[in-house]
């Protein structure tokens, strides 16, 4: 049986963001931008979507008078990511799930 994949994570950029955040305590916007290669505009739209779903937290502050955005994954986000990976495996190794 194929499990339905979480549509929120089944997008290249959002999955990349969550995969980065899963191993970090927190990361700045500029770091996520650099590692995912996304444009600032697209990245911030996707971050907002993840935040609305409660998968990540976004903190806005200032450093040296410049705005600073830092993100971290939430418990809900971790659970969603783990479920996503588990479901993904059913596609790759269907025999095991018969």
């Amino acid at each position, binding site marked *: 049986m194929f499990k339905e994949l979480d549509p929120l994570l089944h997008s290249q950029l959002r999955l990349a963001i969550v995969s980065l955040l899963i*191993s*970090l305590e*927190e990361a700045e916007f500029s*770091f996520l931008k650099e590692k995912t290669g996304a444009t600032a505009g697209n990245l911030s739209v996707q971050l907002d979507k993840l935040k609305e779903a409660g998968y990540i937290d976004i903190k806005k502050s200032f450093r*040296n008078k410049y705005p600073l955005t830092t993100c971290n994954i939430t418990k809900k986000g971790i659970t969603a990511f783990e479920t996503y990976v588990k479901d993904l495996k059913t596609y*790759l190794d269907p025999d095991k799930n018969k």
Partner: protein
Amino acid sequence: MENTEKQQLELITEMIQTARTQFNDDSNIYLLWGWVVSIASLSQFIMIQIHYANLSGWPWVILVPTALIVQIVMMVNMKKKEKVKTYPEKIMGYLWTAFGISLGIVLFSQSRLQENTLSMVLMLYGIGTFVSGGAIKLRAMVIGGICCWILAIACFFVKVEYQLLLLALAVIAAYIIPGYLLKMRHKKNV
């Protein structure tokens, strides 16, 4: 369909790998303390040898507070550049705080520990560098930690003034050599 799922899995693996190998460059802090402790202990040793034992504590009195100020400035600057916070680094923060507190207790109890003081200090160095080396996957630092423990045992068997040479040797093995290797690693990754 399966192709996309494979790509998704590859993407996850790649991103986790990127995040895991992400460390802020703190090699300068290791180098700072490596040089300060080795210069201070060697100058104290030399001063004792040329019969200036009564002044031999001065290199520490001058260098350690200076290094503390330099370290605070370095850490503030690092904080400004820091783009991520990793879990190993968080643990290392706790580790070195614990090290600092324990070192403070040991130095405070110097009058009771007498000639065993440096063995205790080296044992603490061993813990700090061994665990940090493991956390940042730097084998030279792990080996440096082991060297500290061996030198801690050696300290029990030598006179106090020669213990200073062992201390210098310990920080060269535990801080200076791994510090430069760490610096090289970060330069390569930039």
